[in-house]
């Protein structure tokens, strides 16, 4: 695996202000490119296998189609005044110093082509307004720099017009896919979802074996026969969770947490082998068709299993797709029980039970953890939990505070809606981009270092599979423990006292003493 380039020493860079502005280093990241998609990754998604001969004309006509079908793209390409408000807001810019990673400069890669072909000023005075033809070089820049955007929307928070670079980079990736210039990582994964049902390509048989293993593990630990049911018709709740939860650490510990909470709630629930994946990489590549196709699996599974509610596990962009898009793309979901929000986040589900006093915790079980919380970008800036705006910040924190004694927030300019991306979101969680991922994690790593030094914070909790996977890789590079990243429901799992469990008896005995 490629480490960060030699002039970037993470252990040295970990000290400092998370929002420190670097000096510009032009072209520093021009060589960063993800592996290209092969024809067998492209074609199942409806894209040409390789760069088409008339790529220029096809790209321009696709841009025209997107302009006509997406208000955001049209308004955002016109409205930028180059005020500079976004210039120091992108974690990839702060980490790499490459000026083309400033949000406005990234947008301009597409905007200059838009101006040349779709505006009067760009047609007649290209030099004056920075309009440029779409050349092979420009296309190369697109492939490089639109794959250095994790679509985290931090820039859109600060833009006076709300210009969202995520929308621009999604459009650019859609255009590149359309002319046969896709990215391997995202497109291969979407293919796996279509073929097998989840991003990791776990077949139903392996999935069932894993779930049985986990149930045994829980029973061994607690003495309670907590089940992790799959494909159970007539269950009340369908749980859709990222497939990493079936496979990797600390994701799996989170899944154990959901299972314990769901068991304790007394509501019947099931997973689905057809929709064994909450993630939807169709969003990352900006392809509404593929996003919709992936989203339909959840509808199909809900109908097939006859469930009344849908709960989504810990996954950032999946929660955005579920919360903001699912009803539009695959709705209406009028066959579900209208008394419950559709969809519901597992943190909302757990928090409701906590507020109703239905869950019992022994917080001291988490005393070895001094915790902070990493707001995942898509949850923070593209969704909500609970009834009030900002519930997406308060509810996971409320859950953490209910299950542990030591909780500390990171610096205010690095959390809530100003949170920094982990550095691996938006379809960039692939090994060949490790240099970019390491550098992009710098602002978050600095914020974590601050609370580690100030409050002795040992662990950071998150509710996103991509964040968890990314941090597992970059934490050691910055001198932290690889296991310093934990799932929120892992903390829930540690502290929860299941009815009739060994832990409950122990607790009662200790009270009697």
């Amino acid at each position, binding site marked *: 695996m490629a480490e960060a380039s030699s002039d970037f020493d993470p252990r040295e860079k970990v000290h400092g202000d998370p929002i420190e*502005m670097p*000096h*510009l280093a032009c072209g520093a990241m021009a060589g960063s490119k993800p592996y290209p998609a092969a024809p067998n990754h492209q074609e199942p998604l409806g894209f040409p296998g390789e760069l088409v001969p008339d790529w220029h004309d096809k790209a321009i006509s696709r841009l025209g189609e997107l*302009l006509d*079908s*997406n*208000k*955001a793209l*049209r*308004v955002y390409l*016109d*409205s*930028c*005044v*180059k*005020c*500079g*408000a*976004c*210039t*120091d807001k992108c974690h990839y810019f702060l980490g790499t110093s490459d*000026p083309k990673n*400033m949000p406005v*400069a990234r947008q301009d890669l597409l905007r200059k082509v838009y101006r040349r072909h779709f*505006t*009067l*000023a760009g047609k007649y005075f290209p*030099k*004056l*307004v*920075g309009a440029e033809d779409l050349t092979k070089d420009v296309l190369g820049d697109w492939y490089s720099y639109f794959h250095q955007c994790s679509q985290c*929307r931090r820039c859109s928070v*600060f*833009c*006076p*017009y*709300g*210009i969202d670079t995520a*929308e621009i980079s999604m459009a650019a990736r859609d255009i590149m896919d359309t002319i046969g210039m896709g990215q391997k990582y995202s497109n291969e994964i979407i293919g796996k979802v279509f073929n097998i049902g989840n991003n990791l390509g776990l077949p139903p048989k392996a999935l069932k074996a894993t779930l049985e293993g986990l149930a045994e593990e829980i029973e061994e630990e607690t003495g309670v026969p907590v089940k992790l049911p799959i494909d159970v018709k007539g269950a009340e709740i369908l749980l859709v969770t990222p497939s990493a939860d079936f496979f990797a650490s600390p994701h799996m510990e989170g899944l154990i947490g959901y299972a314990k909470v769901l068991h304790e709630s007394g509501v019947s629930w099931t997973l689905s082998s057809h929709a064994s994946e909450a993630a939807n990489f169709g969003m990352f590549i900006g392809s*509404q068709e593929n996003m*919709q196709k992936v989203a*339909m699996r959840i*509808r199909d599974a809900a*109908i097939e299993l006859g469930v009344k509610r849908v709960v989504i596990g810990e996954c950032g962009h999946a929660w955005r797709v579920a*919360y*903001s*898009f699912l*009803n*539009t*793309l695959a709705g209406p979901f009028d066959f579900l029980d209208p008394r419950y*929000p559709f969809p519901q986040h597992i943190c909302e589900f757990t928090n409701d039970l906590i507020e109703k006093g239905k869950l019992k915790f022994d917080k001291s079980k988490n005393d070895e953890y001094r915790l902070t919380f990493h707001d995942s970008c898509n949850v*923070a*800036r*593209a*969704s*909500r939990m609970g009834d009030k*705006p*900002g519930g997406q*910040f308060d509810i996971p924190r409320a859950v953490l505070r209910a299950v542990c004694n030591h909780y500390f927030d990171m610096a205010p300019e690095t959390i809530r*809606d100003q949170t920094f991306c982990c550095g691996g979101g938006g379809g960039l969680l692939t090994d060949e981009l490790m240099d970019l991922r390491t550098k992009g994690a710098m602002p978050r790593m600095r914020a974590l270092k601050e609370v580690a030094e100030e409050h002795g914070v040992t662990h950071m909790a998150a509710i996103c599979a991509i964040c968890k996977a990314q941090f597992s890789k970059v934490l050691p590079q910055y001198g932290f423990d690889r296991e310093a990243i934990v799932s929120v429901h892992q903390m829930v799992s540690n502290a929860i006292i299941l009815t009739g469990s060994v832990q409950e008896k122990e607790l009662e005995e200790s009270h009697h003493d």
Partner: protein
Amino acid sequence: MVTIIYATAFYAASLLLVIALGRRIWLYATTPAPLKIPTTPAPTTKGGVVLRMVREVTVFESLFRSNKWIWLFGWIFHLSLAVVLLRHLRYFLQPVPYPIALVQPFGVIAGFTMVAGLLALWARRIVVERIRYISGPSDHLMLALLVAIGLSGLNLKFLARTDIVDVKEFFLGLMYFDFSHLHRLPADPALLLHLTLVLCLMVVFPFSKLLHAPGVFFSPSRMQADDTREHRYARSAKLESTPRRA
């Protein structure tokens, strides 16, 4: 001759401004927004969205959170511009409404603060490395045009005063298509310079980044309510017609 040229130019520029800007606004309004993408936390109601937009366009809330210097200079410029425009209404309204009469002295001060704000923004464009990097020729020219309009206006007020009564008669004549009494526009170079620059601005407006003015009202990340769980959002015909099982 001067009168005829400027009368024609103002009609042409106004027509162009209305048509081109109208077309642009029409495009913004009618292009579908297939998905809900408000930047959250966002208001959950339409009333909340209106409030968010009011804060955005009056006090530049997002910009304030981003960068205090850009906010300060940008806000001073825009506020001053608004006051200056209000002051200028007296050249187009007869009789002059009381509030417009009241605003006159502030309008003069605003003329200076407008130029000051623009120069400060321009200085940032040159001095701050990352903003210099993103600035193109048109960004500098736009600032130059606005500064020139401000300075040529102040010049008319303080150094090269013109017959303002004639100017007002000229514009009232244009506005009411009253050509029989069309008064002659004073042929002062200082006045003609100011008017020419304003004509330039009117022509450039619908083809430039000044489109941010209507654009902000159509920005989905700011003008959408966060209510997808409460109300199903389906605006795209393509999505509605997608065949599905069940």
